[in-house]
């Protein structure tokens, strides 16, 4: 009998694992157990085209249902894995079922961090992670409504942009002194602040929500600045908690995610962890990382599948991410943490520029706004650990093409 694989979680990573296992020649049984009611789908449009109502739900699916039938996958929708015995290699399911595995891929992703203030359970308070989340907030996401967005990360800012387009009145509260504080430089953050304010967003930095109160069914957001903002809808985007509890309870090493090696193997034999829930060693940055991006989810799924198929190839990638706000396409590659120099190429006022982050002259990361060529080049430079000089990077009169090293 050939080995079987159980995949826990059907997001980007779980869905990709199915495809990569079959593409890699795995011919044993595959079971995909996922708590959501949907086949694996794209999350990025949830805060973009799907929220805007421009994309029907069917178009969110990563692959049509015929694909899973063709691949002979036993898909269990709406079922949670509630228990794991890593010694016996067995799983307990929320419907009372049991499964055993030879290989298991944990692709459990994460859940929104709850808003840490009193009153956060008010019915007007919503989070944005799943199709169901968007559908639940939609009745309140209507023209004229006042929406308070707590947290100015990518998701919060994308929601603000869609809200403006839809005729809502968005107020954004960000605890940090600037938007995108965890990821961007003050220069780039300042750019996005100007764009959002210019578009009509009431953006308040250095301000958190200290309580949510109720006034006749509406939420009143009390800010740390002392303001009280009446809101039809509150959307909290204050980070993600990786879903590690299942692994943790089974004694699998976890430390800001499920700890894996370069082949996405967790500390228990036969167990892999991929995507938002996993914490992997990065050769490029010389430290452990837990990333929340589509690219990471897809590539780690491919890595685990390759290992199961007996063709191990270490996960070694330049992280990248994109974000769409208004007519701006932000593409970021690499990780800027620890940079000591920022070089801006292009023109922020023209909304077309790239910010390069360097440390001791080494290129760490790029934030490219409407500059795909620079993004593509920089991704390669970061990988090669070889980049043009800061002077050349900053000289927009040299064509991007000519910068190739």
């Amino acid at each position, binding site marked *: 009998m050939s080995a079987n694989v159980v995949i826990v979680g059907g997001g980007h990573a779980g869905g990709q694992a199915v*495809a990569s296992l*079959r*593409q890699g020649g795995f011919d044993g049984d595959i079971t995909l157990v996922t708590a959501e009611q949907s086949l694996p789908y*794209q999350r*990025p*449009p949830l805060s973009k085209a799907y929220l805007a109502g421009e994309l029907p739900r069917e178009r969110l699916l*990563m*692959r*049509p249902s*015929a*694909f899973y039938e063709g691949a002979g996958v036993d898909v269990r929708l709406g079922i949670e894995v509630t228990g794991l015995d890593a010694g016996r290699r067995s799983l307990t399911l929320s419907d009372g079922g049991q499964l055993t595995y030879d290989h298991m891929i944990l692709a459990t992703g994460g859940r929104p961090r709850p808003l840490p203030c009193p009153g956060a359970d008010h019915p007007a308070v919503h989070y944005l992670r799943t199709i169901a989340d968007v559908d639940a907030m939609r009745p309140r996401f209507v023209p004229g409504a006042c929406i308070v967005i707590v947290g100015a990360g990518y998701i919060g800012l994308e929601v603000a942009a869609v809200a403006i387009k839809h005729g809502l009145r968005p107020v954004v509260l960000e605890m940090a002194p600037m938007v995108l504080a965890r990821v961007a430089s003050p220069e780039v953050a300042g750019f996005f602040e100007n764009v959002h304010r210019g578009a009509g967003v009431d953006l308040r930095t250095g301000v958190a929500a200290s309580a949510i109160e109720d006034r006749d069914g509406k939420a009143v957001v009390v800010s740390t600045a002392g303001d009280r903002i009446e809101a039809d809808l509150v959307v909290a985007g204050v980070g993600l908690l990786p879903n590690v509890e299942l692994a943790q309870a089974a004694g699998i090493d976890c430390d800001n995610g499920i700890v894996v090696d370069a082949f996405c193997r967790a500390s228990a034999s036969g167990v892999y962890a991929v995507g938002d829930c996993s914490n992997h060693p990065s050769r490029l940055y010389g430290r452990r990382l837990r990333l929340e991006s*589509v*690219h990471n989810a*897809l590539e780690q799924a491919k890595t685990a599948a390759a290992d199961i198929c007996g063709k191990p190839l270490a996960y070694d990638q330049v992280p*990248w991410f*994109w974000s*769409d706000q208004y007519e701006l*396409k932000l*593409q970021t590659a690499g990780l800027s943490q620890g940079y000591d120099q920022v070089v801006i190429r292009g023109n922020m006022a023209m909304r077309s520029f790239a910010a390069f982050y360097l440390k001791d002259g080494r290129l760490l990361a790029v934030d490219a706004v*409407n*500059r*795909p*060529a620079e993004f*593509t*080049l920089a991704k390669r430079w970061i990988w090669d650990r070889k980049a043009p000089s800061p002077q050349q990077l900053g000289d927009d009169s040299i064509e*991007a*093409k000519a910068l*190739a090293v």
Partner: protein
Amino acid sequence: MTKITFIEFNGTERSVDAENGQSLMRSAVDNLVPGIDGDCGGACACATCHCYIEGPLAGKLPEIGEAERSMLEMVEGVTAASRLACQITVSGDLEGLVVRTPQSQH
């Protein structure tokens, strides 16, 4: 449905019946065509749907937009025939289209 043939860099051919109105990238992904990944889901952000389209039908494709053009500019292996499959909508006009996929996406 429109018949489209994908040819991998190693010459392997695969014909699919693509649904009209969908993107060429979706048709490839839905039919498990190797070499078209579509990581960003068609947001014109990843170029993992890069492909080559030549021949008389190439003239019937939708024009290259600004986002697609600049995304393709520095992609590995770019040629005059390069397109991003996510930016092409399948229609009856494209019956018999031949799409080559680059080696770098395998």
